[in-house]
């Protein structure tokens, strides 16, 4: 009973009781809210790590994506290897939750560069649309600050 109720002699209305399904829905929502930043971070990390390692192991499969530079050149090969190295390190950082915001921010910039490059060279395509989604994920991870499952100390 609050002050007003005590003064006036009335009883404050109680919130309507939640049904079982509403309670379960609320709990599920709470659970998702608590874990989704971590799930997004780890998912993004796995994506980057997969592509990074693949670029390092089979760089010649990726040289076609290097804009302007001829696919068969050593320069393109070197750029793919550097890109793969960076993606791998970023992927590990995100999976472990180390320097998450920095890793997510750099990832977002890298993916944005890919999106723009592919758009300018080949127009908007299914690959660009997919990478746009990864870019959004990276931005979301960059903005989130409630991470779990992170490596500390």
């Amino acid at each position, binding site marked *: 009973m609050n002050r007003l109720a005590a003064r006036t002699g009335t009883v404050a209305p109680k919130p309507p009781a939640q049904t079982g399904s509403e309670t379960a829905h609320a709990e599920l929502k709470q659970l998702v809210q608590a874990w989704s930043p971590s799930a997004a971070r780890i998912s993004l990390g796995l994506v980057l790590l997969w592509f990074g*390692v693949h670029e390092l192991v089979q760089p010649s499969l990726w*040289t076609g994506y290097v804009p302007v530079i001829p696919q068969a050149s050593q320069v393109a090969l070197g750029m793919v290897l550097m890109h*793969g190295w960076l993606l791998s390190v970023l992927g590990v950082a995100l999976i472990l939750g180390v*320097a998450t915001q920095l890793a997510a921010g750099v990832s977002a910039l890298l993916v944005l560069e890919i999106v723009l490059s592919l758009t300018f060279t080949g127009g908007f395509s299914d690959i660009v649309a997919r990478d746009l989604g990864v870019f959004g994920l990276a931005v979301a991870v960059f903005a989130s600050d409630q991470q779990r499952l992170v490596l500390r*100390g």
Partner: protein
Amino acid sequence: MRIAGESVGRRGAAALSAAAVVAALLAVHGYGHPGSLGVAGGVIPTGQASPTPSASGTKPNSSPSASVSPSASPSGSATPGPLLSSTSYASYTYQLYPGTPSTTARQALAGFSFTAQPSQGSVTFTLSFAGGSQPPISKSYPASDHIYFIEASFGDDSGNAEYNFGDDGYIATDASGHVVQ
């Protein structure tokens, strides 16, 4: 330890350092073994493959590459190779000739186009690159041969654009399914 305003513990720094070293080692390995492709000299590695039989059925780690020398005569005298179905490329092949390519085959052909012109017991197969970035490849085969396109990954195809010619190629077999060498 802080990186760009974020604190990184000892374990984090050690993990990142280890990842950087391992990735660098992989990069060195990758530089020495760039994977597939016979892109040497800028020649896109599309041509007859000479795969070796593999029971593993795993994704080929090297794309079919061989010397592509347009020939005017059918390659009927060539020594038949292994059965295509016994090679690691089998699951990545899409029939182009004879018959009409399937929908999947047309998707695999992203970035390429082909013609197969039968004449007098042979068929002249010509594979062209979208945009004319490379000269077309043309070769004649006995009309009874089968010609397949190889696409190891569709992930690098977009619409009619091919971002990676390294995992594409074509292969011909005789009527019994043996790879024509």
